[in-house]
């Protein structure tokens, strides 16, 4: 006898039910996800905007250790910051207006695709080198830098 209900050949195990139509439970799942994301985005937006007036700092972190934490205003003369290590090397251009990763030895170059970092909250991550370059606002940059060092 031939059965075409789709479950006949799989009834041995407790396989998931075959529900292929968009149902009410899916709407609920979508709502949970969207609410979670809005909550996250709002939280970050508030956090960057609260400290907008304080001076921007550039922070370079490698393996969770802060390599460089300085106000951008210190770089009236543009500087090429070099990172070299066993994993690879990076070249980071820092001026008082912008920071950008100009060269990296990593294969994917995602950090270089991030382009110019201008405002607090901007950043570039290089996972193969475990390096994070970001612009933070003065106050939060100070406290977080200390916490990061302590937690190491």
């Amino acid at each position, binding site marked *: 006898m031939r059965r075409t209900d789709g479950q006949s050949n799989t009834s041995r195990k407790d396989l998931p039910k075959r529900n*292929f139509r968009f149902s009410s439970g899916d709407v609920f*799942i979508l709502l949970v996800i969207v609410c979670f994301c809005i909550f996250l985005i709002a939280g970050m937006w508030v956090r960057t905007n609260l400290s907008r007036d304080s001076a921007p700092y550039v922070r370079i972190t490698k393996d969770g250790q802060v390599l460089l934490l300085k106000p951008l205003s210190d770089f009236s003369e543009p500087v090429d910051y070099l990172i070299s290590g066993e994993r690879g090397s990076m070249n980071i251009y820092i001026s008082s207006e912008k920071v950008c990763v100009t060269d990296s030895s990593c294969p994917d170059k995602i950090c270089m695709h991030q382009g110019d970092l201008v405002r607090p909250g901007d950043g570039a991550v290089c996972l193969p080198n475990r390096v994070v370059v970001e612009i933070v606002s003065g106050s939060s940059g100070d406290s977080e830098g200390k916490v990061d060092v302590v937690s190491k």
Partner: protein
Amino acid sequence: MNKRRTAYDLTKTAMMLALALVLSILEAWLLPKGIIPVPGFKLGLANIALLVTLYSVGRKEALLVAVLRSLLLLAFGGNIVGFVFSLLGGICAWATMCVVVDLPKVSIFGTSIAGAATHGIGQIIAALLLTRTFFVLLYLPYLILLGSAAGALVAFLTIPVVKALDHIGNEMIQ
């Protein structure tokens, strides 16, 4: 009869593992770097194979596909960072899909979307572990939102495969 079914399940799992590998490589070509400004975002087409295995073979086999896919991608010229990312993302997605699939009134769309969203969470956990910097959390909401949209597409593409496999199976196991 029973042996035949076991062989059929094994074949399906192996096929899906091969499909997952091909799709992982294919989607790197489909989405060149820098087009979408969220680093680490992928369509997650390999989730098609994971979903098909979950729906037509079983849960344990789906985990096997997720883990072996990451391992084989590493063997086929991947790097260790990509391995940690796909492994953590895949396990998170699998665990979530196993739970969500049993919820009442949830279709394959909800399962796939929930899996894609937690895949993003798993990736961010991997990034947190690797960089030890909270900055990477900034990408989380965008990764989840884009991933959910991709999850709906993946579910849409999975349905015909599961149906076709059921059809073939009904003819083979008689």
